């Protein structure tokens, strides 16, 4: 890979990031639109959670990954500390894989 595709991808990605943050400043938005944008960001984040815990590429990720995420989610719901959520999720998934669960 040469430097050109890297630069194009870097500049394009930075343009998305900066474009959003600058637009937020330049345009005065009604409260309703602000609320929709905030809900939109939440919708994107939840979609990322769903796809990254249930799919790998274009197919099902197997049971060990969503099981680990679920354990982390339940602990988070029960107000467990962040570190506990992270370690429990990774450990659950790792142990299930070690046990031969896909």
């Amino acid at each position, binding site marked *: 890979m040469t430097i050109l595709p890297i630069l194009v991808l870097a500049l*394009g990605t930075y343009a998305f990031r*900066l474009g959003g943050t600058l637009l937020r*400043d330049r345009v005065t938005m009604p409260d309703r639109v602000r609320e929709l944008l905030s*809900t939109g960001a*939440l919708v994107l984040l*939840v979609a990322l959670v769903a796809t990254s815990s249930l799919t790998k590429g274009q197919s099902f990720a197997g049971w060990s990954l969503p099981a680990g995420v679920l354990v982390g989610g339940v602990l988070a719901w029960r107000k467990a500390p962040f570190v506990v959520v992270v370690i429990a999720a*990774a450990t659950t998934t790792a142990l299930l894989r070690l046990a031969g669960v896909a």
Partner: protein
Amino acid sequence: MRSIWRTLDAELWRGVLAIAVAAAVNGASFGAIAVAAGLALWVPVVMSVLIFAGGSQYLAVGVVAIGGNPIAAVLGGLVLNARHLPFGLAVGDVIGRGLPARLVGSHLLVDESVAFAMAQRDPVRARAAYWACGASLFVAWNVGVLAGALAGTLVSDPNALGLDAVFPAVMLALVLPALKEAGKARPALLGAAVALATTPFLPAGVPVLLALVGLVAVPRRREEVVA
């Protein structure tokens, strides 16, 4: 900047540290995979500093590794990163005023820093959380990538350690409180369902963008008040 250290409590710092460690190991894996795919050492390192979006970096290296077209790699990466535009629109005012803060802060806009900022109640804490998370991940990711590229196949399979569960678990923990707010759960769940249903058929990144369809389930509170 100093106020960031004072604003955030120990629990939040421990959370940031936990995902930074996972990002470093994930970065080491990316560096090793890129070098193993035959790319020069500087390629994953420069990519990570300039692009700083793991998913698109894996995608680009994956396409090039199987002899694919670099243009396809760039386009795929851009589609994957398009979500940063609505993220910026949603949390733009969190980053800070003044052009220098905007220019630097925008580069630290990643899924985790957005989620950390949105999980905070007041704006001061949100700003501190955004910068603490973004900067920590930037350092951890880049140090990890450099180490992995130098060490080669040190961390050949981070999935065996269950590290792929860390990102979704962290994001889930961060979005849970917001989901309990009125009118948020339905659009989020509808969006997630759309993303999952379209994943088998569409290129990476598009299903997550399509999740925005879920916004049709937002209740029309304003009109009700007027009526």
